[in-house]
């Protein structure tokens, strides 16, 4: 894990510097500056040091919780991230909750009622949302629920109500895929031998499906959901833009556009850390769900 993070740190640091633009130009917004000012900035941002020295300074700072200073904002990167991370994490968490709350029942119903009219209708519903870009759903949601029905604010952040529309827009795309996987996975489980046993033991169908089959069927669903959740942190930029929420994705994009290396590096590393944390959590969840995993571990 440490090796992975180190390798990614090297990769991130050196690839962002492949860009042809001049960091001083990014700091001064392309304004003409005197030689003295230029020199002062070069020293302030350690640009007079070699790349490998700059790398060491960055790495050392990171271990001490100092992510450097943003070129575009001229304030501490950790402060910028702190201000924005809650919006994005909140969005991802709510979107995942909504996605789970919808996709698992849909998947179960489809599996139990396999090939019925309801199953087919849900399939079409899922297909439509899998094919619709989040951006489009976001705009449609804003139009219907904010502008026409006035149920939610159209822009901004801060309260739970602000999160509902953007998180729902993000969730729908995820619901579609998760529901399909839950369905397939449930169908496999429903056909397995232990379901026959359960039936023979006289277990109610609901109990057999919801307790026994569902638990086994969840493993692939959780795998996909964890990947989707990681992707959402970046994918959130679309709804963040549409709903003017200014989260982490928005900061990353604006930093890439203005060659704000320290911010790009910090967010990328943060994403890597979150991805790794998520996969660790998934491993733990596997163990919770499946005793076999626990015993081998």
């Amino acid at each position, binding site marked *: 894990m440490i090796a992975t993070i180190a390798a990614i740190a090297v990769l991130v640091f050196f690839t962002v510097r492949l860009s*042809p*633009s*001049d960091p001083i*130009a990014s*700091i*001064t*917004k*392309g*304004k*003409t500056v*005197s030689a003295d*000012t230029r020199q*002062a900035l070069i020293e*302030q941002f350690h640009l007079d040091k070699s790349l490998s020295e700059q790398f060491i300074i960055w790495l050392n700072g990171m271990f001490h919780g100092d992510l450097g200073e943003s070129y*575009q*904002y*001229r*304030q*501490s990167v950790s*402060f*910028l991230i702190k*201000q*924005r*991370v*809650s*919006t994005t*994490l*909140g*969005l*991802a*968490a*709510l979107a*995942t*909750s909504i996605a*789970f709350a919808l996709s698992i029942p849909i998947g179960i119903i489809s599996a139990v009622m396999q090939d019925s009219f309801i199953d087919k209708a849900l399939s079409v519903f899922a297909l439509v949302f899998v094919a619709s870009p989040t951006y489009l759903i976001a705009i449609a949601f804003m*139009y219907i629920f*904010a*502008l026409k029905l*006035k149920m939610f604010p*159209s*822009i*901004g*952040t*801060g*309260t*739970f109500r602000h*999160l509902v529309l953007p998180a729902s827009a993000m969730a729908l795309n995820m619901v579609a895929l998760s529901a399909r996987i839950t369905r397939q996975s449930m169908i496999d489980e429903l056909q397995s031998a232990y379901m026959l046993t359960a039936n023979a033991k006289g277990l109610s169908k609901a109990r057999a499906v919801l*307790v026994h089959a569902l638990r086994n069927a*969840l493993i692939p669903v959780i795998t996909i959901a964890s990947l989707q959740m990681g992707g959402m942190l970046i994918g959130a930029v679309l709804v963040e*833009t*549409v*709903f*003017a929420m*200014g989260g982490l994705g928005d*900061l990353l994009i604006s930093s890439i*556009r*203005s060659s704000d290396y320290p911010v790009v590096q910090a967010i990328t590393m943060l994403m890597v850390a979150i991805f790794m944390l998520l996969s660790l959590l998934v491993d733990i*969840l596997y163990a*919770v*769900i499946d005793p076999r995993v626990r015993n081998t571990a």
Partner: protein
Amino acid sequence: MKKRLPRALAAILALMLASCTATSAPTQDSDIKTLRIGIDSDILKLDPAYAYDFTTNPVINQITQGLLFFDPNNQLSPHLASSWSTQDNIEFIFQIRDDVVFSDGAPMQMEDVAYSLNRHLDPNVASLLAGNFARVESIEQTGEWELTIRLSDADATFANVLGGTTGHIVQKAFCEEAGSNFGSSAGGLIGTGPYKYSSGGWLTGTSVVLERNENYWNEADAGYYDVLEFLVIKEEATRVNALANGDVDVLTMPPASLLEGMYADSSITMLESPSYGLVFMAFNHAKEPFDNPLVHKAIAHGIDFATIASTLVKRAGSAPTSLPFSLDMAASEPARWAEYLANAPVYSYNPEKAKELLSEAGYESGLEISLMTNEDGLRNSICLAIQEQLDAIGVKVNINRVSGDEHTSYQFGEILDSDGLRAYDILMAGWSGDYPDISSTLQPLYLGGQTANAAAYSNAALNELIEEQLRAVDPSQRNTVLMQAIDIITEEMPYLVVFYPTRSYAVSNKVTGIGTTANWFANVHFQDARPAK
């Protein structure tokens, strides 16, 4: 066991959800009167030394004030200075008001004034406005309430600079104490304006909240609204929807591509004014044949700018002349300038003439050029029209669309080719003068060696005339020199004007009192806003 899984899931999600409530919303107390203003990008810093763009300025202008300001008729007027004078355009003497108070209640002192202006000269501040003080030799207190600024070389336009954010005053003690934290979200700033900033009010990328300054020194000018909330809305359609939906009351930058619909919406009042800007095509003089005036004129005759203005630009601007500024920029003798314009050369749409000029320049068989632009929708449509029109005179245009920041780097000469020269044939870009004076367009665009001189153009006679007009003390004499300079420009046409942009503000019908002038960049003051009856 069977309940453990849902619980574990719920716990993780609850943890993440809890994090989103960490940023608490400003409490919506119905007694607090809030004016919400939609801006199109985040501000750069809470520091007048960094206020040099269309979003940072409207925020900073509510918090800090300048020695001078532009009145609603765009006349330079006293503000924190009670008067100013100069005999030779070298030594500028300001009488400073003794009754000004900062938002924390402390009186403004001479040391605050001298300190604030000197910040632009400090390399460690790295002021974005340092260029405005390039000729400043010294800034000194010369009397109890008198400040003298000495220039190294005459500059007839210098006082204008102090009407903008360059002349804004911040509190020295606060600034020194905050150190490198000054101007950040946590650090903030203290000024003398009708609104004040409290630490944490700037949620980067999202909003800036200002509160009314209860210690404001100029009672007659106090704001009506208790709170100004600037909301960053980057997406164009969202910005317009937010106004239509009542989520914001004002948009400072209504998107050009959606103007028509906004004019049609009866719940919105559109305020518009001419600007000091131009959108231009710069011929890169570092590359052949773009240094050849015959080619400039051929292309000028090959493009139907009048039709482009009426069918594409529409409300976003007005049709060009051969002058690199609209007459709103003329600081004095407007009638004389109108007459000058009437006699200036006209390069109207004439494909036959264009072909003649091209063959005279040695390109009878045609020419292939690249035209660089940014992602702006309107400019892209214009480029397509130009591509089609120039094709008819045998000029093949390749449109090279680059991202906004990359485009800016090209425009200001930060991206150069391996020979250290500007790396485009023709660049479509924009420029906006900082103050109502022709010189604020002439100097940056036409003086040799300036970073904003996207044409990489330099003409010794013109350079000398630009310097000479800065020395002229008599305005009429100065106009004579300016006209000689523009004679050269209209003959060589290193830039073609595409259109003169119109500035607009979109205001909800629920709000009144906000005015707009060509100089709104420097002086829109939201303290004048009131709810409409």
